[in-house]
């Protein structure tokens, strides 16, 4: 038995199929992951993401510390409440985790990290915290709920009452406190919506208020196809400690400006000077079928590998994220090697595939 989130009982009552994810018992789906996917693209869905770990970084030098720890530069965060996506790297430039950092006060930042790498992240963060005099404090007392979809705000206006006015004012990648509860316009689906960090004891009641207002519980299955359509990487699949952000479609999250030293910077500069040999992009299957993690592909530029593969419910086609030689261009035709060795016609495409309910690639 794995760890249970504060919403475990809600999932069981709703008939969820529970699976292990990063050491946690999590809902895969509540009957149909495809129906849940469509609910998020067209209406609104609610996800339990309490397996992700909130970690507080506190201290007068919290900003300087995070500028040293993260490949993205928290100096981009000027106003309290603003969020930034970035990677934690090792000295070799490999990705230890990807995370969101919220700037809450000059001496207070909050990180949200992935479930699987969380313990390693916390040890890594603490190992470097000493000389900055910052305190690293995980928050297992917080639950995290994501409400996503074009009607997420409409549901929030009914569930949150007056507090909804605060949410309504938030721009993308901004958050704000309502009492001790933190709301932010972030997510992992490519739809409008928000995420809520709330006291674990209050989470089941909030969950039920959203579902009572017609917001559809959605599991990890739908979360995976939604993020894949939205072209968002999944840690452990699309990047890990053996690859750099430059090889993982995450160069936009790396700030290499001259004056800032950070862990992994010299390795990334070396890699860039020598030439990045691989890159991450999208794959669209032209034949009927499903793309699977680990499948090989073959193009005029050599071989590639599927890092995340699935079936896109929105496009009704097999799609994936793939790591290919740097010479491979989006638009190139290639062949996916099926599980019994058969060859399937495919094409490289620039992610995202779908956002805001709309297809962004030509089929």
């Amino acid at each position, binding site marked *: 038995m794995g760890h249970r989130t504060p919403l475990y009982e809600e999932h069981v009552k709703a008939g969820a199929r529970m699976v292990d994810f990063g050491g946690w018992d999590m809902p895969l789906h509540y009957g*149909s992951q495809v129906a849940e996917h469509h609910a998020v693209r067209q209406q609104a869905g609610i996800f339990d993401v309490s397996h992700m770990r909130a970690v507080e970084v506190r201290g007068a030098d919290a900003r300087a510390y995070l500028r040293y720890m993260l490949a993205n530069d928290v100096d981009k965060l000027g106003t309290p409440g603003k969020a930034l996506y970035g990677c934690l790297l090792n000295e070799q430039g490999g990705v230890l985790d990807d995370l969101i950092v919220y700037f809450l006060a000059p001496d207070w930042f909050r990180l949200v990290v992935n479930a699987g790498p969380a313990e390693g992240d916390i040890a890594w963060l603490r190992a470097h915290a000493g000389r900055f005099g910052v305190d690293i404090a995980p928050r297992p007392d917080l639950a995290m709920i994501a409400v996503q979809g074009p009607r997420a705000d409409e549901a929030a206006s009914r569930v949150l009452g007056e507090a909804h006015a605060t949410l309504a004012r938030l721009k993308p990648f901004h958050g704000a406190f309502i009492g001790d509860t933190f709301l932010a316009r972030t997510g992992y689906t490519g739809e409008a919506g928000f995420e809520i960090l709330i006291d674990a004891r209050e989470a089941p009641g909030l969950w039920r208020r959203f579902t009572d207002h017609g917001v559809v519980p959605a599991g990890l299955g739908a979360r995976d196809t939604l993020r894949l359509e939205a072209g968002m990487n999944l840690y452990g699949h699309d990047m890990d400690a053996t690859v750099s952000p430059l090889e993982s479609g995450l160069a936009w999250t790396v700030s290499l400006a001259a004056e800032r030293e950070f862990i992994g910077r010299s390795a990334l500069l070396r890699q860039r000077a020598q030439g990045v040999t691989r890159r991450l992009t999208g794959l669209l299957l032209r034949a009927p079928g499903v793309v699977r993690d680990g499948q090989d592909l073959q193009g005029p530029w050599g071989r590639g590998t599927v890092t995340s593969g699935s*079936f896109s419910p929105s496009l009704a086609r097999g799609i994936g994220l793939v790591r290919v030689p740097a010479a491979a261009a989006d638009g190139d035709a290639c062949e996916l090697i099926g599980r019994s060795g058969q060859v399937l016609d495919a094409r490289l495409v620039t992610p995202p595939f779908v956002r805001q309910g709309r297809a962004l690639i030509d089929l």
Partner: protein
Amino acid sequence: MSKVPGDLRYTKSHEWVREEGALVVVGITDHAQDLMGDMVFVELPKPGTRLDAGKECAVVESVKAASDVYAPVAGEVTAVNEALASAPETLNTDPYGNGWLFKVKPADPGAAHTLLDASAYETLLASET
């Protein structure tokens, strides 16, 4: 609990067969579709294909996984369920009815009777969980 209709025969690999005159209709069980989740793609044999009992002859793919379907009996494929190409989710909603996969003229007319009956299949399911 998965549905296991009493009038069908079953395989250990979770196919069902129903006798229909001289033919047998083949599908996958409610338990199989439930384990796999939302079906999105079905690859069926061509009519006229000769099947060997126990050999893979079709593929069903869900969002989560791909799975081979094994021929419950030896014989010749006489018809396939073309409607599944555009509506694979029928395998989830009606696995014993409109979700049938293909029909076979068995080489041995009594072959279906060598398969598991409903109570034997239920015992198998109980032992797997």
